[in-house]
């Protein structure tokens, strides 16, 4: 397997971009819940809420990674 080394700056840039996408994805899920929640059944809303929890968990993991680095 090929390995590649990334500089601190590259890692910080990657973390920044990932967090940007995470925040946007979380925001769009929130939009669906708030504006279309009435049209979604209970299972659907539960799935969206689980999606948000996963996004927040991913953000926490990135926070931890950022502190380890």
């Amino acid at each position: 397997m090929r390995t590649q080394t990334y500089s601190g700056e590259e890692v910080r840039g990657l973390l920044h971009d990932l967090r940007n996408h995470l925040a946007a994805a979380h925001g769009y899920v929130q939009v669906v819940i708030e504006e279309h929640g009435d049209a979604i059944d209970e299972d659907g809303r539960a799935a969206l809420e689980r999606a948000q929890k996963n996004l927040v968990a991913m953000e926490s993991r990135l926070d931890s990674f950022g502190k380890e680095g």
Partner: protein
Amino acid sequence: MAKSVSKPVRVLVVEDNEDHAMLIRRAFRGERWTVDVSGTAEDALARVAERYDVILLDYKLPDMDGLELLDKIRAKDPSAAVIFITGEGSEEVAMTALSHGAMDYLTKRTSYHLGIAEVVEEALSKRDALLTGEEKVPTPEALEKALANVHLEGVLKAMIVMTVSGRPLAWKLPKGIEVASLATALSRIRVEVDGVAKLLKTGAYYIHLRLGDVGILIEPINTYGLLASIIDPPEAVASARVATRQVIDRINPAWT
């Protein structure tokens, strides 16, 4: 009190990422707001002449550094309340933005856009107070309310932990609290406040306090931001003071 009760508040969002621009725009729905979006610094500078009440400014733009754009916006329209938007881990940049005249800053995290309108309302109030020359001195009741959800001892202990390496910690004051009020509040809790004194020509205050065996110097960056560094025990003083001085020199060399 907002600048205008009858006219909509004019908001300019300077953000090149379309998703975030859309999410931020959605935070300002209703008749109270009119919102425009600029995807570049060049476009934003052209629009500033249209006189916005609030400008939400992303740090990373394709054609200019956000701090440089902040300076240019402030030069063209000092009355606009500018709120800086940074990524996680860029708190030092945010503190620099405050010292360059930004009213507040936001960090892009999940759900950050949900609280934007409230931050903007607060910035408008601060801006209006500055424009009219009214200094808002909180009543004891208002101060207690603002501090109700702030565990000051916990915050101060966290500041000690985070500055133990000698690196200064930049900290944004909680909403509704300014440095002088913080010093007053500290004197009411079980923290020994050694002194609140005029240090700077601007008339701002510093706070020297002691928690157990550790002495901390808290210096304001401006009315809404603080820089904290450990100055005691003695072996921490030299490195902490050098680090603090280096940061202050970068932010405002006129401070002594």
